[in-house]
């Protein structure tokens, strides 16, 4: 078991190094560097001034030297400083952003599960009724609407026109923290993030529920005089949920993609906004650091899964 774990750990470390090389090379292939992003083309700045900044940041060094310097520092836990933010350490910045992203994604996921399952059940129980048709149309609109569109529309309607939700940020600036303030800022982006997933879950839930409701054991339950509510909740729902649970797992990736758009539109201080800003400003240390931390998390989760499998099923070690 120890050998297996060590081998997997070494493999994970190699994958992390490979990931960092890949990101480093891709970044350098993209046109422009942090100094090109730093300079407003409308403002007169001499090449000598730009060269001095490049030299100070070590961007004038050969690429292998730059990479090894970064790797050496990263090995000691130092991911460097953000170029576009004076004096801000990358590691602190990245850890600061993980929480808000998880909060937004988790809230969006919970909302989409609750709304998706509830509306799916209603649609199936009231099959072909006006409610069912209305919900189905809404679900198709939800599935077809890209996240950036729903985000902008939601912002315009609820923040600008009706002023019922803040237009952005996670907390009201200059005001002491309160849970109410956090929830007020969270609810609109989370609801908008959940729309696409909720619509998808609703369609699956409805189809699955319809299938189950036609099963003999449901008919038997009804024949025995069980109240309709309990027939649906106790007998049908449990079986209908199985394929939906599988679907929910596979839509988490969709939630990550959606979160990047939502974070940009609502200025939500998460990983998505951080990465978008960093790419726009060619903030190499932030892009490298954020990618490394995300990559490390993914590799770690896979490692834990592998080790768990191995512990449960000894044949995996042999394989």
């Amino acid at each position, binding site marked *: 078991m120890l050998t297996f774990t060590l081998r997997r750990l070494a493999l994970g470390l190699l994958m992390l190094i490979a990931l960092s090389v890949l990101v480093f090379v891709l970044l350098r292939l993209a046109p422009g560097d942090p100094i*090109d*992003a730093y300079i407003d083309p*409308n403002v007169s700045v001499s*090449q000598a001034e730009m060269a001095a900044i490049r030299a100070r940041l070590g961007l004038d060094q050969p690429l292998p030297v730059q990479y090894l310097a970064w790797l050496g520092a990263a090995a000691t836990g130092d991911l460097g400083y953000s170029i576009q*933010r004076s*004096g801000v350490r990358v590691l602190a910045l990245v850890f600061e952003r993980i929480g808000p992203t998880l909060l937004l994604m988790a809230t969006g996921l919970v909302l989409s599960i609750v709304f998706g399952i509830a509306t799916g059940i209603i649609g199936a129980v009231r099959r072909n009724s006006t409610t069912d048709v209305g919900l189905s149309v809404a679900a198709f609109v939800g599935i077809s609407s890209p996240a950036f569109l729903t985000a902008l529309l939601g912002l315009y309607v609820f923040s600008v026109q009706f002023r019922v939700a803040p237009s952005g940020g996670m*907390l009201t*600036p200059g005001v002491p923290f309160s849970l*109410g303030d956090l929830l007020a800022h969270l609810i609109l982006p989370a609801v908008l993030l959940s729309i696409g997933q909720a619509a998808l879950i609703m369609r699956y839930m409805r189809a699955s529920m319809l299938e189950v409701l036609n099963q003999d054991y449901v008919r038997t339950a009804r024949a025995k005089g069980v109240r309709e509510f309990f027939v649906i909740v106790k007998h049908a729902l449990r079986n209908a949920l199985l394929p939906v649970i599988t679907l929910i797992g596979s839509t988490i990736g969709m939630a990550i993609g959606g979160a990047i758009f939502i974070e940009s539109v609502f200025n939500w*201080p998460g990983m998505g906004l951080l990465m978008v800003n960093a790419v726009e400003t060619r903030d190499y240390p932030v892009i490298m650091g954020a990618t490394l931390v995300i990559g490390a998390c993914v590799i770690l989760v896979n490692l834990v899964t592998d080790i768990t499998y191995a512990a449960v099923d000894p044949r995996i070690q042999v394989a």
Partner: protein
Amino acid sequence: MRLRTLRSALVLTTTLLAPMLALPALAETGKTISGGFDVGPGGFPGNFNPLAATAGLTWLSVYYEPLVIYNADLTAIVGDLAESFEISADQKTYSFKLTSESWHDGEAFTSTDVKFTLEAAKNGDTGSVFAARLGAIESIATPDDRTVVLTLSAPNAGLLDTLTKIMMLPEHALGKVPPADLAKSTWWSTTPVGTGAFKFEKYVTDQYVEVVADEDYRGGRPAVDKLINRYFENSAAAVAALRAGEIQFTYVEADDVATFNGNDQFKVIEGPSFVVNYVGFNQEVPFWKDLKVRQAVMYAIDRKAIIESLYNGAATEANCGYVAEQFVPAGIEPYAYDPEKAKALLAEAGWAEINGDKPITILTYYNNPLSTNVLAAIQAMLAQVGINIVPRAVDSPTYNATVLAAEPNFADFPLIYAGLQDGPEPSNINVGLNETMIPPAGTNALRIRMPEVSAAFDAALGETDATKRDARYQAVCQAMNANLPWATMWVANRYGVSSTSLEHFVWTPAPGGGPFDADPEKWDLGNAQ
């Protein structure tokens, strides 16, 4: 039993959450102005280090101050932390008499701080973007606590303009930090002290910066208790926050202005951008070397029509690098729209043989809808005379990397649509036009080698008699108008929008955010937020 348990749980949860769910507004105390002060081209969100500030000076000057500053309409440089200043007749000695002020931590502001700041700004190791511009300073003398004397090795007409952008820094707080460590110091975004009307309170990473009133400010205690500078991903997000009533001011794109006109809840602030827009001819591309071809481009573009229809009249036609009256001589060629003349000039130059209708890329970093429409109009107008241009819009880093590359591929930018800051200091455009400014010395990326233009700039930069300065820049304008290193288009206006509840608020769309004398201590809110 189950129901009772559920009810009890609900009551308990509500009781526990109630204090936390209290409305945020109840917790807010004092008058607070929130704005998107770093939105738009004059902003630099996330930069707290004035030595590295290529923009963002509107906000930085709320808690830091320079020795001298532009007045609010950017027509003159006046004293700020220097209560008076004198320049010797030979333009080589600058004497500043300092005002009586203290830093936000209570220490006195003295000439030692000025010397420390200017030395740090001169030293490239600190990450200063001003190092090259301060190269002419030979010595910095501090005869007493209130006097600073700068001695220059040669006259430098742009020095005062540069000094407006250099915020004074406290020697007692930063003097012990090695120059190379200054740029990455956390001091800038955690515990900075300045001399401005507001004191730095806190920075919530990438969300907002909060400053509070300095009770002892020499201009009087600020009218509001707090200023908050909110960060936005783009100006559209800031506009949404303004409309939602969450902020009281932001820069807005020209396209958005119409939606605020006639709305009595908002006030539109308009001012010249001090950025001259031009179509630049890459002189490494042979067919632009012929003056007749460059003249044809000028005659083929109906600038008046573009200004009227796309800018709604809010731009000033430019026939050289300047539009400010004092720098534009009478009698220069107006290049009025004349497509027939353009065709004739092209025929004389043999355009059909040297390029004909082969597509010519026009590279730009302007990505907003207005610029897209402007380029489409220019494309259509040039097509009418037989010049086939193809716009290519990229982001600023890609643009800079393309045109300022050490070994550029000139075929990537035979034409550019760009802008350069032409004021309030007129020498700014020298860096893009003078032959001596061809990279790596400057940003003359188009490799313009026009002796008459370079000589005019050299004469203007070397002029020590202030009374002759305007005439020297008129000569620059004349040379540009005759030689057409660029097809100059216009200087467009830029806009900010404030809530009408904001009183005594001063803002102007200065390049890089100024700074300018905005008197932030007088900003007030007429109605409670």
